[in-house]
């Protein structure tokens, strides 16, 4: 609720979890020590930040890179403030650096203030309300389909992520179906006489080994089916002998 006014921060029991980044932390430190941002002592603030960081490191708190980068930046600034005559080419002066930091802090503080003001405003659906039972007019081209930009983007997001796009393609099989075998065998009913080897009925034009095996299996299954239907008789004299078919001509 009152993120802006952090209750007395005890620097030595603090973790970094409560902060939204190093500038947020700096703001808290400034506030905690009642440092007026307009009369900000950057030096003092930098010292406090570094002290805090030092302590956090000792306490073995996992410190995000952002805090360390800011720490390094502040340490650099501190050294510049201590040695104002130290002139490095193409580099900000201590004053410029302080100004930048001040600006950054003030800007974030400003945003924090207005974001609270914003959410203090009356809000639609909570404090004021829209028409509860809308009517629609035919002639104003109103689209009666609802689709938000969010929905559209989200949908697209789903399409381009793998999960959604994994379609399994099953290669076309070249296996000889039992159904085909049945109709094939049936077509021989009228023209065949006596016991005939089942293998004779396997289509001769099949070359692929796997396909021949599948044709054999499906013709055998088909023959069993036809026995059941009473169209043929099957015979195998001995184990491993050839299987013979006899058609019952009607």
């Amino acid at each position, binding site marked *: 609720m009152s993120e802006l006014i952090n209750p007395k921060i005890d620097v030595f029991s603090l973790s970094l979890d409560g902060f939204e980044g190093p500038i947020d932390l700096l703001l808290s430190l400034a506030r905690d020590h009642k440092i007026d941002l307009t009369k900000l002592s950057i030096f003092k603030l930098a010292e406090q930040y570094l002290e805090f960081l030092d302590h956090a490191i000792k306490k073995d708190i996992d410190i995000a890179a952002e805090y360390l980068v800011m720490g390094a930046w502040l340490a650099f600034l501190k050294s510049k403030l201590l040695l104002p005559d130290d002139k490095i080419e193409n580099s900000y002066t201590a004053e410029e650096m302080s100004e930048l930091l001040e600006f950054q802090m003030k800007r974030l503080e400003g945003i924090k203030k207005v974001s609270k003001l914003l959410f203090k405003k009356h809000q639609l659906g909570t404090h004021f*309300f*829209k*028409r*509860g*039972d809308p*009517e*629609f*007019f*035919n*002639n*104003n*081209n109103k*689209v*009666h*389909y*609802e*689709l*938000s*930009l969010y*929905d*559209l*983007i*989200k*949908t*697209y*997001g789903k*399409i*381009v*992520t*793998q*999960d959604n*796009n994994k*379609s399994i393609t099953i290669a076309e099989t070249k296996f000889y179906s039992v159904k085909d075998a049945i109709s094939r065998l049936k077509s021989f009913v009228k023209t065949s006489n006596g016991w005939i080897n089942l293998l004779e009925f396997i289509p001769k034009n099949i070359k692929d080994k796997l396909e021949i095996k599948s044709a054999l299996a499906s013709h055998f299954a088909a023959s069993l089916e036809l026995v059941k239907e009473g169209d043929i008789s099957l015979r195998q004299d001995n184990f491993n002998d050839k299987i013979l078919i006899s058609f019952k001509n009607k």
Partner: protein
Amino acid sequence: MKNLNKDYKNIDFGLNQKIVEALIFSSAEPVSYLELQKTITDNKQLDKILIALEKKYMSSGVNLYKISNSYAFRTSSEVSEHLNIERIVPKPLSRAATETLAIIAYHQPITRSEIENIRGVSLSRGTIDLLLELGWIKPGQRRATPGNPLTWKTSNNFLDHFGLKEINELPGIEDLKSSGLLDKNKIIFSDQTID
């Protein structure tokens, strides 16, 4: 304070009328007298308020209607003669249509078979028709490939509907990735070939 009773009552009446007005306006269904009584306990006053509101809206574009023992605002018949009123509840677009629209938006101009390619499902006729009818897509140039297939792209209507000035304001894959709309490392787009 007690001397001001009459005045006080008047102020009360004004505010209470506004409350009743707002209640009926914002309710999804006609508001029953009983419901209104929960706010305005004084029956006499409530009756007066309802009469006042009825009068107030008498010659407006919207009238206060009494439906059995409930109250609702409805467009006046005078207006509805001029505007065709439809009691249509907006419905969400089907998944197929949404996906198709999204693909057209991001890949335009794109042919039907390319859309099918990306979605991995064939497109039913009605989908393109619906999007066309909604005015969100329009035909583009034909592809200079065998069969000269028609391409589809989004219309100005589309931009209007989604509040975009131009199509390149549509967040791209990178924007989506960083906003969390797309799961990282799951983009297969780079190696997906769309013929």
